[in-house]
């Protein structure tokens, strides 16, 4: 019976979506707002990657919120998985289950890929204002490296205390940078607190690379914590 209802509902949503797909027409030119972004991000913020410029500066308030979400999830997952208590306790003693040892492929692969993965992650993070990438993306790459690490070496113990301090510190610094914007630039989260620099240079685009780096560190630490919580 449930399946029938489910089928009906999914079918009807299909009909709604079909209407949407039929009525949809591809943009032939960016919206007026997009045009302004495409002009102003390079000119005003000095960032080559328009998406990063939007994310870090113009919609920095969103990004801050999103960081808060991730921060809360890292804390909640730890709390939930330790039976609703966690948070105040030090990282749960890792009792690496004597499960099947990881395959040789994973172990060796990890050895080869890990340094590259971390390096690449770092590259993506710090070059976010210049090319495709940014704090989130790079942080995710680093965290994937961590996944590989714990897969390849199940005995490894991540220091949750360190990670937690790192993510908190990065968060506090992020907010502090935002507040600096209030005093030294146009407003909260304004990236003009640092000089714009030469367009396309590594050190340029105001505080964007700095915030990007903080984001990357924070995201990497949080994702690692979350992943590690599930391991236990």
């Amino acid at each position: 019976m449930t399946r029938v209802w489910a089928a009906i509902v999914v079918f009807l949503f299909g009909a709604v979506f079909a209407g949407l797909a039929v009525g949809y027409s591809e943009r032939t030119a960016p919206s007026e707002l997009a045009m302004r972004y495409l002009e102003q991000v390079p000119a005003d913020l000095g960032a080559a990657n328009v998406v990063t410029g939007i994310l870090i500066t113009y919609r920095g308030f969103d990004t801050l919120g999103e960081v808060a979400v991730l921060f809360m999830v890292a804390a909640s997952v730890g709390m939930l998985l330790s039976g609703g208590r966690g948070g105040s306790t030090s990282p749960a003693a890792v009792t690496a289950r004597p499960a099947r040892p990881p395959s040789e492929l994973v172990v060796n692969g990890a050895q080869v890929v890990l340094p590259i993965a971390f390096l690449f992650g770092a590259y993506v993070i710090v070059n976010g204002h210049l090319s495709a990438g940014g704090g989130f993306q790079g942080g995710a790459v680093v965290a994937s490296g961590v996944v590989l690490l714990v897969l390849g070496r199940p005995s490894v113990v991540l220091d949750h205390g360190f990670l937690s301090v790192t993510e908190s510190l990065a968060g506090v610094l992020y907010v502090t940078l935002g507040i600096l914007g209030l005093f030294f630039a146009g407003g909260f989260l304004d990236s003009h607190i640092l000089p714009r620099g030469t367009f396309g240079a590594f050190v340029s685009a105001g505080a964007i690379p700095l915030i990007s780096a903080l984001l990357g560190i924070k995201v990497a630490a949080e994702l690692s914590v979350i992943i590690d919580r599930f391991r236990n």
Partner: protein
Amino acid sequence: MVEGLLQPLNIFLLGLGGGFLIPLLYRLSKRLPAVAFWAALAGIAVISGACLWRLLGGADAFEIQTAGTAPPLAISLRLGLAEGFFAFCVNLAALLGALHLWRRLRDSYTFLLLYLILVMGINGMIMTRDLFNLFVFLEIVSIATYGLFGLGQTRASLAGAFKYIMATVLASSFFLLGTVLLYHVTGTLSIDEMLARRDLIAGPVGTTALVLVLACLVIELKPFPANGWGLDVYETAPAGVAALVSVGVSAGVFFALFKLMPLFAPHLTLVAVSAAVTFLFSNLIGLRQTNVQRMLGCSSIAQMALLVLALALLLRHGEDEALPLIVGGLFFNHLFAKAGLFWLAGAVQRQRIRDWNVLSAGAPFILVFCSLLVAIAGLPPFPGFWAKWELVLRLAEHGGYAWIAVVLFGSLLEAAYLFQWFGRAAKAGRRETGGRVPPWDLFPAAACVALLTIGGVVASWVAGAASAWLHAPLFAGAALLMAEGLPGRAKCLSMLLVVFAAGAWMVQGIGGINGLFAVLLLSGGLVIAAAGLYRSDARLGYYPLMAVLLLSNVALLRASTSLEFFFAWEIITLASTFMLALSTAARGVMLQFLLFSLASAFLLLTGLAIARAVIGTTDLSAFLAAGPVAAPAFVLIALGCMVKIGVIGVHVWLPAAYAKADDDFSAMLSAVVGKVAVFGLFMAAYQAARSDAGLELARAVGWIGMLTTVVAAFLALQQADMKRMLAYSSLSQTGYIITAVALMSHLGWVTALYLVANHLLVKGILFLAAAAVIERTGLKRLEACGGLARRMPLTFAVAIVALVSMSGLPPLAGFGGKWLLLSAMVDRGWYGPLALGVLATLVGLLYMVRFGHAVFLGPLKPEHAELREAPAALLVPQFVLVAGILLLSFFPKLLMDPVSAAIDPQFASTLVWQGMSLELIYAYWNPARAMAGAVGLALLGAVLLWIFYRISRRPSRSGSPTGFFSYYRPLLAPVLASHAERFWGAVSVAVGGAAGTARRVYTGNGQTYALQVLAYVLVLYFFVVAVPMLGGG
């Protein structure tokens, strides 16, 4: 500097910065997170409060730009008056909620940071002016909530949390999809720009996008039937978390809806219908809940739906300027009352309603509990009352009668289950609570009561009814409450003094009929209340409530606007309800009493609202010139008063309440409180006559009055319980008054007032006499007593005077009253009611003889040989009342002249009876002829009864009074079967059955809930897209 710190942006810095800092601080010291938490939370509350203060002082709305760039490029926020009000309320509630939850929260710093960021997120939802940012804040709030659900340790709470996550994730996914599609069609994410480009939102993409965003917000507010996931969480989450979801998260979502409402302008009716369905069904389902938190959940959902309903309807009618009082008032009311109740539930820690025997939790607890219930039920003096009044008024103005019916019926259901809960809680049971609720646990809820009281005063001021005399009854009650530690008699004395002083002050300046009524009710009330001195026990709460009751009578008569009138009316209802609840015996009937009273009040409210709509003012004096258009209003007002009087058919609550109440309070109910509704009916009739409205209906009312008289007389005759007999007798006598009022003539009205005075005196005496008998013998059954005249001669004497006066025998006042009534009926040619009246008088004679005979005559029971006369505290008031009867009987002009004069001067010439002097009235009618007729009829009846008695007499029984009256039982058989009681019983069963059926949609399965949510979205889509297409052809 200070100004810089108190910027709204700092709310976010405190929330986020504090949240991020907490783990760091924890590394430094285990105590620091708590310090940071409280500092940040208090800071948030202070900032929002300071901003609101500045806005109230006329400052411009705070516009906050992020990234130093103006929208639409960057995200902007706004804190205007509405935002400030919502944010401040939520932050205040969050602060109190953290106090309540503190013992759980401090377990782990994770909870602290989740709580802090949650509060910040709600502020964000309120302030942001960017649609996608709204999504981000919605997610922040959701995820913080998911995390806080981790405070619940039971399996059920985990399962509830998961179901909640499933439903809300679906909703927020739709919001995301809708937001991006809206960006696609409008090219902006700034809400202000989007509102300006409303026209671009069309076509399949735009419409679908709009539906998706609307659907998310509606679903987040838990619409029936797609809200099982919400109820499950309300039931299973820790009370503090449930409170936060109920008032905090819902507030954020509601404000988001409010902000985006202009986008949904074409769909306001759809939103209103959805909210109306939710409001009705949630309250219906609440009736059948056995779990306290789940029931509060039903009420929460209903209250949010009422908010949405009010918002949608007011916007549809362009009544934006009414939003602050109505939506603001309802929101404030729901926020603090519901949070307070959840916190109380958390403090008591009893899940099942039937385990809630919390009398031992202490008087402060009960006071807080009652106040919160009253607030939720939308009763005065709390903000919900003023908001609901204004809402109904505005709806009536736009002819929204169906909406009014929904709002009031739903409110009635809500009051039913809330006060059912109260009834359970007040019932002393075997399993009392272990002890008192410590003050610390009570504090957050008590703070809510304080805030609600302040809110009520502010709302009354906004509604234009903030006069000192109107609130004087409550002040007096509060003052007496402070002295509750005194001995019982001292409290009674101080109450009498306070009522006398305040009453004398309030009565000044009341003129005309109102003045007469006021003096009558106040003095009668004081005399009867003085009988309370016969009891020496503490009677906690009784005397403050008595003061409120007596002074509210005066306030009602002093009312110059319909709002003041209604306010006093509701206070009288509440005071009597709680006074009933104070007595152990009457607790069972309290709910019935309240529900009929509320039904009556709602009829009255609708009538007053319609009157306001057609007359254009709430000024009562303007009612006189209303004209025939106001007829429906007068009909509703009269109906309301008749329900409150308890005319036959809706009388079921009355005998039970009068019989079960404290003995001296029964006297007050019958003699004084019952007259309030009579006054209402009188005024309605008077004004209807003056404005030529509804005269045709008067004849029906006359019939109803006489039917009530006859049926109640028969019912009185068959009662075994003396107070129950007196209760029916009271109803029967009131029937005469109704008919007198319905005569719509000068003579009729003079008669009505004369009868009112007579009945007040008579019933005061009789109920007090019954109180004396019960006090001395402990017996309530008429036939169990006997021969008491020898032991209690004074009580016997006053009772006889009262009985004679009530029966209408010459020479006492009752004779004059009935004479006048019969003459007026003859004059109008109402021969049918006249015949009924004669019959009722005969039957009345029988039951009165029975009362006197059974209690005072016949053989004295051996165990009563040592009885003493009634205490002086009971006798003195009775003698005063007897003096009143004698005065009224032998100097009728003392009352009649002022009455006649009060009615005269404004009298229109359209009426049958011009103002005449009393001599003329007595002379107009040929007494001889009618007297002969009446006597003839009476003789005939007596002969018939005697024949019946002879035929069915059985020798063995002839001695005792029981035997004497048992012969008439077969005669009474037709009325024995109480059709009315069976009917109302069936109604209650049917409503309960409907509730049982409706709640079957909540299967408890998360997947079913998800299906319901998705189906709800489809239904909304259908109504938005398909219906206009079909309609538009």
